[in-house]
């Protein structure tokens, strides 16, 4: 099956589920119109959702994603406390700057989730991404690494913890 067709099929199933969640499923008219509209939506915009080949079983990926999600929540709580400490400290011990980070992830969605995780963790924020060189530019409120330009060290501090789990999910 071609990728676009598979993507359309997935969009069709997802739209039908969303429609049934929004409406009362007992009524046959809702079900009929919902299926019709899901078909229409998958024809209009179904080609965008999936762009790469399937690699692993879906169930394993969802499990890995749950693991990643718990880890992400934990990191977020830790970062929140750190930023709160910085804000409440009378001396304001910050050292802001923009650092470069390398990533090994290849898929677009994996990169996007990585960038969004970095942005959602307080203290770090994704500024830009260079898809060709797999580099992410991050604004960091408190740079703890000794050398700004040392990409490996920055990567180990900021994104390595997410990247290992994301590799399990997507690659």
């Amino acid at each position, binding site marked *: 099956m071609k990728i676009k067709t598979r993507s359309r099929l997935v*969009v069709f199933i*997802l*739209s039908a589920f*969303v*429609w049934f969640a*929004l*409406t009362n499923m007992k*009524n046959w*008219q*809702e079900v009929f*119109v919902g299926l019709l*509209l*899901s078909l*229409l*939506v*998958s024809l*209009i*915009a*179904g080609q*965008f*959702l999936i*762009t790469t080949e399937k690699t692993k079983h879906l169930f394993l990926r969802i499990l890995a994603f749950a693991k990643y999600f718990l880890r992400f929540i934990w990191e977020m709580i830790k970062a929140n406390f750190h930023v709160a400490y910085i804000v409440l400290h009378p001396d304001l011990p910050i050292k802001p700057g923009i650092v470069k980070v390398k990533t090994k992830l290849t898929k*677009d*969605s994996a*990169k*996007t989730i990585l*960038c*969004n995780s970095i942005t959602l963790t307080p203290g770090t924020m*994704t500024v*830009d*991404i*260079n*898809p060709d060189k797999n580099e992410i530019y991050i604004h960091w409120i408190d740079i703890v690494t000794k050398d700004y330009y040392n990409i490996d060290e920055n990567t180990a501090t900021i994104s390595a913890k997410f990247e290992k789990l994301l590799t399990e999910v997507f690659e």
Partner: protein
Amino acid sequence: MNKEPGMTLIVKTVTRISVWLIILYGFYIIFHGHLTPGGGFGGGVIIALALLNVLLAYGKDFTRKWLNIKLLENFESSSITLFLIVGIIGMAVGGSFLFNFIDKGTLFNMLSSGTILPLNIIIGIKVAMSLFLVVLALAAYNFDKGDEQ
């Protein structure tokens, strides 16, 4: 550093993943216009905003490739004729212009209220297409030289 048209990879990916959901929600608003708040105007704008989202994220060349612009223009122009046709059928069947000639159905059902649902759909198509075409024309308008590309 980003030479290709449109915004960064993050915006593109999020748009790619979410555009079908926005369009589906627009259809939901249009098709429940006679039961819940919303209707053709609101749903049409939601669909137009979904298409506009793609236009802003990917640039106009991609959008022109994705959507058949001529088809959209024809939809936009013919929707008003469809409105008139519904009205004239009402005149033929019931004696007055825009007579509600379809069976009313049961209250609170999806397919009820006669011609209100088709007219809502027509208005939704009309609003979505026309607003999207306006923004597309503005995007194609070259601001530096004051001339269309």
